[in-house]
């Protein structure tokens, strides 16, 4: 399972970066979304996988015993997902606006701010 998730994370990173290097604005955003998902999966993987062992303290105990699923990465992922959701919605509005005012979705054509004039 870990191997599978590790490969999956690698694929998501590679796909995300590949998409970000394309010239289209829309593909840029898709690349960021995919990369964001890749990093979430990585956090999940890094916490270690423990199947069917919820982090619940037994009724007669006072502390967690044995192997249990780490709840921290899941909290981290949740936070990261919410943040990236906000950023992605901003990004989508931004590219819509950019397309409207710049009349292009080709990143190579966006070079007005770098002119030396």
């Amino acid at each position, binding site marked *: 399972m870990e191997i599978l998730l590790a490969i999956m994370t690698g694929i998501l990173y590679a796909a995300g970066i590949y998409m*970000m290097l394309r010239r289209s604005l829309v593909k840029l955003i898709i690349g960021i979304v995919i990369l964001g998902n890749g990093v979430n999966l990585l956090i999940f*993987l890094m916490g270690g996988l423990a199947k069917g062992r919820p982090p619940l303290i037994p009724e007669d105990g006072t502390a967690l015993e044995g192997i249990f699923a780490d709840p921290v990465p899941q909290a*981290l992922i949740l936070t990261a997902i919410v943040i990236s959701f906000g950023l992605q919605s*901003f990004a989508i509005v*931004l590219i819509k606006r950019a397309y409207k005012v710049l009349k292009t979705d080709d990143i190579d054509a*966006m070079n007005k*701010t770098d002119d030396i*004039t």
Partner: protein
Amino acid sequence: MSEHLIIYPIIVHLLTAILLLFFWMNPKIQRAISIVGSAVGIVIGGLLFQRVWADGIQSIQMGNWDAPFGISMVADTLAVSLIVLTNIVAFAISIYSTQNMVSSRVKFGYYAIFHFLIMGLSGAFITGDLFSLYVWFEVIIISSFVLLTIGGRAIQIEGAVKYFTLNMLSSIIFLTGIAMVYGATGSLNMAELSRIIPEIENKGLVHTISLIFFIGFGVKSGVFPLYFWLPASYHTPPAAVSALFAGLLTKVGIYAMIRVFTLIFPLGEINQMILMIVAGFTIFFGGIGALVQKDIQRVFSYLIICHIGFMVGGLSLFTEVAIVGAVMYMFHDIIVKATLFMISGVMYRIFGHTKLDKMGGLMDNYPRLSFLFVIPMLALVGVPPLSGFWPKVSLFTASYTQGEIFMLIMFIFASLITLVIIAKVWNSTFSKKKIDVEKRPRFKYFEDFSFAEKTAYVLPIILLVGFTLYYSFFAEHFQMIAERIGEELMNTEHYYNAVFGIKEVSKL
């Protein structure tokens, strides 16, 4: 109540921002609230600084969850000094924005977002948890995206696309680093990490993680191969926003770098070399970039990059003296860079554009303003006794005594090229004869301003220049603060003890 003083700098700006949301459509009230909020921020920052100065590093555990389980907030001298400076700059920009930001932009929530940004900065300085640092970084960048695009001119949107993409990418890289740290150690508390990381057997892994962090923070602070978003976007928004970004945003990247590379991953030989090369190239390309630019705001943007090299270079030398120099340089740079962008805003109002080759005659027409403007410019070059000179003493000494001749040469190169650039700016704006450019219709020039409007533009510059002069003539105060910071940063047990509530035996 008073033990919560640590988080008050965050809360002040949060409350101010919330209050501002209630006056969405009323720019006048918003302006007043913002100025008052920033002033309260300075007072609270000062109180916190006093507390930390007197009693040592303060810490608080959020929700009373003991470290390392909860999120710790730690105020050490570096963090509180930066909070005070942040609030001073925020106060000046609050005043500056009253005229620089037109009402229609204020109605899009400029001030509220501005205070959210300052809140994010304060949080990033105080937090003692890596993931929480990531969250504060996100607060900062989300706010900065909005500030950058408010107004929605084509050039702003274009700059924002570049700014957005690279900052987003750097956040993802930072988060990757966090995931790997958690995987390797099972903790995200910075103080605890400072104890766990040296015990990890797999040094290669630690090394890799530290470089992932370096790339993440490097994009944010604008170091050599990663800075291209900065000159592409910083000149697009109104001067108030540029001043805020120039003064504070890149510095928070440097702060994170200093924190992570002293506390969690103390620099090894290889990392030191990497940082040194990066710093050298940052100085070189920033300087050369600034030299060829013909737009005053773009010149200043490249100068930001050039001077980031000083701080990264100081960090890379990694001795107490060098860190003192880097931190002192940071203090100086925050104030002066914000001032310079404010000045560029005034020049835009005077000339109607920001092109250097069409400016001129400032000295003849505005002698007093010229005198005011020349102080931060000379301070930037580092003319003694102005503020840029003092940090360089430490930096030069450190690089010379450690035999790092490459770094020493780059520092000298940076000073010289800054001098050349400032001379060029001086020539084309102040001493050259005035060039008659066709006046823009429906554009309010500086000469048409009423006294109150002029004051709103010039008063914040006077404030910050006053601070620069204070820094210049009482540099020993800053030296004292920076030495204490250097001591705290190089001896991580102070930080560790403060977070875990271990009483320190006084060194008598």
